[in-house]
């Protein structure tokens, strides 16, 4: 090295030179921290693996007693009776009926509210409604269960549906629907807001009014995000437990008539867990089999939803 190097002038020694040397211990500490943080991340992977492993393991035990064919085609679900019968269809019909009622309420209302908030509402109103929607999503669902059983059902019985039984699938369906509106409205509104302003301006320039713009330009552009909102909301409705456990009744009932009482997959799991069930019995294992069916249904919907959401995020 030449004595006067302009690019690398000699630094006056302000600190002891050894403080600047790479320290072996320092390196080890950095590695340890990284390893520790990685383990934290791995907890998520571990949880998924554990969920799958436990559900599959207990379900295999269950299917040693019950044939898979009977399980998926049987229409009588009475695992806790003296002559048990293990057909899952009644629980699936209950789950699907309630979910369908919920979506009939939540999809139209949630979508219209989302369009209104995104395209029509004044800025100030949106700033109030959006946090309110978030707040409502945080309300424990057991509160809505109370509302369904002790307010909505008696009210419908007293007014338009005098023949409605105390436990039925209609009311929990409607209440889940109303509780799901904020989810759909909030997610769909996000998707519509992600549509670039230039597209709206283009439509206005062509003489379209606000509604024509919203329905023929913004909606088609945001459609994958809006559909994702529907799909994710459906998954949440299928997995909802407390509203149905309180207001839909406890008996598995193979019917698609919302005016009847019927248990769902989730309500069955909750009901059996409330009782004293011997560890390892067929009844105990039946809740894991029901849980596995539930997990597969929601998993398919969630993966579809996330795929669609990623698509609209990539588009703009």
């Amino acid at each position, binding site marked *: 090295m030449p004595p006067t190097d302009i690019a690398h002038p000699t630094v006056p020694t302000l600190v002891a030179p050894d403080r*600047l040397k790479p320290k072996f211990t320092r390196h080890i500490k950095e590695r340890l921290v990284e390893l520790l943080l990685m*383990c934290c991340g*791995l907890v998520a992977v571990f949880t998924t693996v554990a*969920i799958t492993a436990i559900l599959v393991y207990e379900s295999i035990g269950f299917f040693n007693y019950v044939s898979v064919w009977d399980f998926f085609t049987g229409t009588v679900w009475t695992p806790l009776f003296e002559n048990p019968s293990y057909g899952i269809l009644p629980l699936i019909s209950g789950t699907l009926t309630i979910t369908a009622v919920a979506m009939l309420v939540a999809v139209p209302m949630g979508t219209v509210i989302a369009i209104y908030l995104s395209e*029509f509402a004044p800025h100030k109103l949106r700033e109030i409604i959006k946090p309110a929607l978030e707040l409502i999503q*945080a309300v424990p669902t*057991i*509160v809505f269960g109370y509302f369904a059983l*002790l307010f909505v059902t008696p009210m419908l019985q007293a007014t338009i549906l005098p023949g409605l039984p105390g436990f039925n699938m209609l009311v929990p369906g409607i209440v889940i629907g109303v509780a799901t509106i904020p989810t759909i409205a909030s997610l769909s509104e996000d998707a519509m807001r992600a549509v670039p302003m230039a597209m709206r301006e283009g439509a206005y320039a062509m003489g379209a*009014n606000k509604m024509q713009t919203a329905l023929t330009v913004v909606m088609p552009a945001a459609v994958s995000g809006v559909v994702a909102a529907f799909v994710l909301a459906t998954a949440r409705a299928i997995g909802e437990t407390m509203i149905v456990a309180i207001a839909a009744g406890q008996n598995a009932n193979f019917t698609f008539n919302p005016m009847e009482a019927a248990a769902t997959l989730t309500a069955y799991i909750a009901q059996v867990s409330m009782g004293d069930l011997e560890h390892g019995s067929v009844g105990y294992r039946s809740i894991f089999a029901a849980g596995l069916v539930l997990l597969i249904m929601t998993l398919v919907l969630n993966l579809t939803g996330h795929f669609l959401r990623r698509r609209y995020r990539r588009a703009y």
Partner: protein
Amino acid sequence: MNGMNMNTATASAPSAPLRDLGAMRARIKSGILRQQIFAITGILFTSFAVLVLLAAFLDLLFDGLPRLSWDFLTNFPSRRAEQAGILSAWVGSALVMLVTMLAAVPVAIGAAIYLEEYAGKNWFTDLIEINVTNLAGVPSIVYGLLALGLFVYHFGFGESILAAGLTLALLILPIIIVSSREALRAVPIHIREAAYGMGATRWQMISDHLLPYSRGGILTGVILGMAEAIGQTAPIITIGALTFIAFLPPMPVTGEFPFLSLQWVWSEFTVLPIQMYNWVSRPDKAFQLNAAAAGVVLLAMTLMMNGLAIYLRYQVRKKIKW
């Protein structure tokens, strides 16, 4: 629907639309009318949803408020509805929340730091990310089944506060991870570069700069997660929490050395939502009013925590100008 209308309108009169100003004015007018009808529908739907949800809260308040008293908070559940209270329920909820927080917060923040600051773009990172997104959508009762099989029987924790706390911790991990990552991402890159430029190692940069600066955002996520956990009923039912508990867990502070006892984590327990569920499902009206009162306490706690989180987020956004 509207698109079809427009198409048929232009297709049916292709020859003379431009000169016929009257027809054009009529079309614009009807378009504006339809738009106004649509806007009114939007307002109606929004107010309907708000009204129904308001009705739910008011119904709960009207039923529950008269039952709320000091005695209600300090009495154990009882066979007589008028003497029943939620002492064991709220103490149980508080202790379960304590376990949940101690377990979830470090792990979630650690995972968030790893994903934001360490993880490279490879299959391993993708694997973790997919799992976090996926777990957020798993129904809460499935977490209960996991806990029943793993914590209660396999690890032998039994139907204890520890099992419940860990279950809820797993449940809220995705919530805290996602919001912590957002908070970390909001710290601009030049802060990191400045720290590295001064010779800091990666962990020194994170612990001395990133974490203090993203504190507000992380705290918001933690509060949101805890608010979610406190209202969870289904997973706690599944692990087999009892509904009638007329005792408190052992005190965490004792008179003898070493003055701290962890016996309480093994104790049987009940929590607020379970107590409420138990009272709701009884046919006796007096117990249902108790359920409403418990619901008011639960709702107040959830809304307070969420309100705090929204306020915090607002403050963080307002204060930080990089």
